[in-house]
């Protein structure tokens, strides 16, 4: 059961299904820049940080005004 709980992206699963439908399936372009696992997590967290910063700033600003 827990073996099934994986962080494998849907992309891989979709690719498998597409290959089943069309055995010749091959993405015709791959990303120019693909971050390694750790860098990927870091960039994801940067994305969260940007969003959280904006949300926190606005809520803090409104809190201060009221």
């Amino acid at each position, binding site marked *: *059961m827990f073996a*099934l*709980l*994986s*962080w*494998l*992206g*849907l*992309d*891989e*699963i*979709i*690719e498998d*299904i*597409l290959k089943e*439908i*069309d055995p010749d*399936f091959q*993405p*015709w*372009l*791959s*990303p120019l*820049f*693909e*971050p390694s696992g750790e860098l*990927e997590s870091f*960039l*994801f*967290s940067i*994305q*969260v940080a*940007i*969003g*959280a*910063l*904006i*949300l926190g*700033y*606005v*809520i803090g*600003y*409104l*809190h201060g*005004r*009221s």
Partner: protein
Amino acid sequence: MHIAEGFLQPEWCLFWYAFSAPFLIYGAMKIRAKMRNRTEKILLAVATGFIFVLSAMKIPSVTGSCSHPTGTGIAVVLFGPAITAVLSAIVLLYQALLLAHGGITTLGANVASMGIIGPFFAWITYRALKKNRRVAVFSASAVASISTYVVTSIQLALAFPATQSFEGVIETAIRFLAIFAFTQIPIALIEAFLAVAVFEQVISKLEEVSKVDVRSS
């Protein structure tokens, strides 16, 4: 979930770009107009921030896949689908360029599902349930999230039908939907709770500050 780079044939990439472009242009024009108003500016920031945070939350599921919320609920409730399309495009571009999630070729298709068609159904839901704001925001967020994945399934099915027929398209669509449903329904509910919490917090504060009913219109 976004369709990965190079997954859709060039014709479909072009089609979805052509589909999304008018919404993006209209949305960008609307954002320019909104930026002149201080309150609208604050709300735009909140909507964007929420999409940034939510769309980076990867949640694993029992189907052995991992998926993430869309976070478009607040944007669509406040501004409608056109502006949501632009805000989604910003996040999708970030993820396509820096994270290799989604892609430049499939950007049009991903904007169409996450930024336009999903939010469109959410917009209708919000309008219909508007009498009770919390219920409306909750339902709209959940609908935005789920319908985004329904659209993604259909986009993949149109490009890769099991057989070259209408039934073939349906067959592939159902296959993808079955996988997405497992992950996306719980995610949609979590997302909807968060959207209501953030929305209520911001709106009630904003009303306190400006002493007006911000979102009665």
